[in-house]
């Protein structure tokens, strides 16, 4: 995916990501231009100058086509004639058509269903809105309307699906469940998914690549781990989030608990649920709903916020006397104070400790008093402990 978007006084953004990145997240502070960028890419910003190639091959020169507002976005395959790319955009406000009910909205979307369209029954099952089918739009709650809007987009089957805070009204558990379904479905149908979300954890867990936008410009682009590390390294994030990857251990009779276990280089971490590392792993799954739990997937990931991590200088990993289940031996790499707008006194109260476990990064937010008491300094071996994720 490659794009170059210019919108006078608002956006000047250029980025390139490998085509293998099926799910791309766009992050940035409020007012950074994330939504405008998405609208421009969808062809809805009339004043914007947009060059985009959704399915650019890796390491090849940018091939582009100017996007005309209100037209289907075009892309050019480097080695072939221009192809039409269907771009679907789901807003934070669901924009369901109120003159028809939920079923009517899905029927309108089905009228121009593309080759990547999901059947209505599968879309409403995955988006948890079977019971809403005959309801009027006015009677839906914010979360229900967002789920229907997502189902409508899937029934239409775009080549590129853009979500602009489209699941913001859902509670964390349901949002996570629907995102799992969405990522799996998009992977299976080869739909490129572009997500804007304020929830860094969602982006970290479900995206293959990230684009960080600040003041209308692309600040960082690349893999989730790279962009997250880059954002955290700038010191402007109060509570950085890290992603830990490992092998998923199949549950068996000797572990009768409703948790998932993740083996991170010999250390067992416990989680309520993990997310598959590669959204394309299930592409061979013939299950139309994309809901099957394919047991061949081995690697999973969890997101850990700095505020959830405590540091123990006792390097003994297993401490039976503590209720905190997860422990990971790490090395202190850096200690810094986040540059966030607050008083100098507050700024001196907490610090971020950057830790590494092999090539994986973890952050801990601790008080300066603890840093002093534990005599934390770069190079020190410690154990990072955090609760079940």
């Amino acid at each position, binding site marked *: 995916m490659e794009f170059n978007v210019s919108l006078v006084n608002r956006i000047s953004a250029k980025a390139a990501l490998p085509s293998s990145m099926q799910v791309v997240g766009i992050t940035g502070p409020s007012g950074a231009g994330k939504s405008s960028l998405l609208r421009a890419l969808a062809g809805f910003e009339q004043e914007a100058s947009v060059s985009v190639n959704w399915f650019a091959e890796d390491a090849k020169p940018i091939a582009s086509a100017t996007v005309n507002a209100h037209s289907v976005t075009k892309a050019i395959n480097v080695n072939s004639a221009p192809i039409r790319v269907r771009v679907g955009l789901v*807003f934070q406000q669901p924009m369901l058509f109120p003159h028809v009910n939920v079923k009517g909205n899905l029927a*309108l979307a089905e009228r121009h269903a593309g080759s990547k369209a999901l059947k209505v029954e599968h879309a409403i099952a995955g988006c948890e809105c079977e019971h809403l089918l005959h309801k009027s739009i006015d009677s839906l709650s914010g979360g229900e309307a967002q789920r229907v809007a997502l189902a409508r987009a899937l029934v239409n089957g775009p080549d590129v699906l853009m979500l602009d805070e489209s699941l913001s009204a859902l509670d964390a558990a349901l949002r996570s469940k629907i995102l799992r379904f969405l990522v799996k479905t998009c992977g299976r149908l080869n739909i490129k998914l572009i997500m804007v979300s304020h929830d860094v954890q969602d982006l970290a867990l479900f995206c293959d690549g990230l684009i960080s936008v600040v003041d209308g410009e692309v600040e960082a682009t690349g893999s989730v781990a790279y962009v997250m590390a880059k954002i955290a390294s700038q010191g402007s994030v109060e509570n950085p989030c890290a992603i830990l990857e490992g092998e998923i251990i199949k549950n068996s009779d000797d572990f009768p608990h409703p948790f998932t276990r993740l083996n991170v280089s010999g250390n067992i971490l416990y989680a309520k649920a993990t997310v598959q590392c590669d959204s394309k792993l299930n592409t061979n799954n013939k299950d139309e709903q994309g809901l099957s739990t394919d047991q061949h997937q081995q690697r999973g990931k969890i997101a850990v916020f700095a505020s959830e991590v405590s540091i123990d200088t006792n390097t003994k990993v297993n401490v039976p006397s503590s209720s905190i289940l997860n422990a990971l031996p790490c090395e202190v790499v850096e200690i810094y104070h986040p540059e966030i707008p607050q008083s100098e006194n507050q700024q001196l109260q907490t610090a971020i400790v950057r830790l590494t476990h092999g090539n994986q990064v973890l952050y801990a937010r601790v008080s300066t008093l603890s840093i002093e008491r534990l005599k934390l300094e770069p190079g020190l071996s410690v154990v990072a402990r955090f609760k079940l994720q």
Partner: protein
Amino acid sequence: MLEHSAFAAVGLTLKLAFLTSVLLMVLVTPLAWKLANWQHKLKPVFMSVLALPLVLPPTVLGFYLLVAFSPQSPVGEGWQWLTGHQLAFSFEGLVIGSFIYSLPFALQPLYSGFTQLDKRYVEVAHSLGFGKIEAFFSIILPLCKAPLIVAFGLSFAHTIGEFGVVLMIGGNIPGETQVLSIALYEHVEALEYGQAHALSLGLLLFSFLLLTLLYRFNGKGGQGWSSMSR
């Protein structure tokens, strides 16, 4: 009891109002949509021209139309060449005159309705693969049902109450151009107050009922018309 000529006037008035309103809806609806999405420095001038019938004395408009419809003018001459009869003092002439006179009453509620429509509905329709025309008929018009009904109702009511323009370009030919307001005027001139009362009361009740219905729809989204004056 109403005379036969009064019933003819009622029938002619309803026919004129219906035809004018239908024509206005067909032609002004796309115009209003275009105007609602058109940004140009000359837009205020264009809008002013279209709104002129709101403020012009009907006799002024009627006079210019009469001149335009005369066989000596290119429009009147062309019409006579096409149809074999003159445009002034004909029912067709009344329809054209009523169309121009009532145009702002159809345009204003439609323009307001389209302006207030959240354009993201249109964007969603396009992203779902709808072309411009299909989106207009399948999404935009159903979403603007209230302004459409208000525009039709106002055009209809305004045409029924028309007097000055009709008198100037249609005269007073029973069964051809004699509409209700003209018939009422004639009864008053002839001191037939009983007939005049019957027609007036009928018009009053009809106008009241129609406006009540329109206010009901206006509350559902058709805005911008209640401030207009004749």
